[in-house]
């Protein structure tokens, strides 16, 4: 029985570490004066989200989160950052009264999500879910939206190339 207890403690501890990492990362991403530190905070939070997916029993989503957000998006941001010359130390501007808006939006969103989930069953330790329906849905029922998104990406790539070409011609 002590083994069981020990294992549960490890489980809870790793979950807590993940949450702390996410919160610290999020605060760093928003509050840091240094652009590189902001970036690092963003990466920490995104990896934390991947960890949450894993805890919720979906390794596929966790891996995809790391691959797309950390691997692709963050490396692209990083590449962009290494091409800029200022390290972003202009500092924060005092937002004034506008600072009240974000907490309200956050609380409203959190509240609506919690209200929506209120009548669901509470599970202490989620089991691994079957992820194969994700692929079947994407290539069956939701094929059209899936393809439209890929067209959007193609348009974005073509746009980026044409912007670069115009700049080169001038």
């Amino acid at each position: 029985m002590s083994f069981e207890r020990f294992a549960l403690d490890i489980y809870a501890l790793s979950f807590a570490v993940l949450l702390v990492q996410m919160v610290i990362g999020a605060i760093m991403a928003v509050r840091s004066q240094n652009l590189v530190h902001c970036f690092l905070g963003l990466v920490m939070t995104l990896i934390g989200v991947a960890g949450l997916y894993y805890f919720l029993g979906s390794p596929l989503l966790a891996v995809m989160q790391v691959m797309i957000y950390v691997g692709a998006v963050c490396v692209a941001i990083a590449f962009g950052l290494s091409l800029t010359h200022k390290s972003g130390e202009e500092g924060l501007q005092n937002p004034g009264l506008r600072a009240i808006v974000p907490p309200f939006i956050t609380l409203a969103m959190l509240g609506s999500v919690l209200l929506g989930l209120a009548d669901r069953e509470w599970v202490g330790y989620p089991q691994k879910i079957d992820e194969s329906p994700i692929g079947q849905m994407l290539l069956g029922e939701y094929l059209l939206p899936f393809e439209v998104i890929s067209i959007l990406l193609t348009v974005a790539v073509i746009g980026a190339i044409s912007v670069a070409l115009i700049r080169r011609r001038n």
Partner: protein
Amino acid sequence: MISEITLIRTLLSILGITVVVGVNAIFVVWFERKVAGHMQYRLGPTEVGPAGLLQTVADGLKLVSKQIIFPQSADKPIFILAPIICLVPVFIALVPVPFSATWQAHELDVGLLLVIALGLLNTLGILLAGWGCDNKYALLGASRAVAQILAYKIPLLLCILPIILLSGSFSLREIVLVQEQSTWFALYQPVGFLIYLIAITLETNRSPFDFAEAESELVAGFHTEYSGMMFSLFFLAEYTYMLVASAIAAILFLGGWLGPFLPGPVWMLLKIYFFLFLMMWFRWTFPRVRVDQMLSFGWKILLPISLLNFLITAGVMAAL
């Protein structure tokens, strides 16, 4: 939910992976110096231990005892984090790798995806190292690393996709078991195999593609400012990444642990070190190419070929 057996298994796996990472680094550094020596018609290390085998242990002790120097203008948290971010992902990437039908830390049905995703995190470590130490050689090395990863990750993924089509699974274990029924995927996918070999040489920053740390141009690239144990963490990460990439190559193309007479893990290790030897052979016989040559080779030649390879494989599979 969590039984004693899974817990003991997890702890043993962590211990096992740590041992594999350490012993592999010690062995591969020795092996690399021996290979380099013999290719240049000399002997390599001979003094410490039998055939110089303990040379790396001695070097490791020296590195551990050395002072870690922080550059004055370095961004300290990033400077300290960078080598750790480099090492941890490749360490975790060993988790889904099967060394035989039963020797595997944890079976994941998305194992291959996990290894690919963690490979990208390694790049992030290199990038942060380049930024953190506020040195222009390091920054140049790091931005080259990102450019080359962006150029070669896509052909790499495109030559893995046909394997997934052939085996119908992302699980590394399943991919080997499918090859038990048919034959090595290298025979079905010779082009993919070749592109994979080129791409992993690049992924692991090995010569002839070692732009991120090109000694003759950038001093030591992204780890110019690192000393002592932090420097050796980068090397540990690089050699572990080589091990992971070779293991994936063995699993995807050469049937993993499958082979006659010898037990599974022995075959797996033989195949892994065959790939490692191949990468060393590249390093000590090819001169470094130019950055623009490398980038245009990746985008203009490897990408179309691997895309074509994928389309042909999909077409043939749909026709059969």
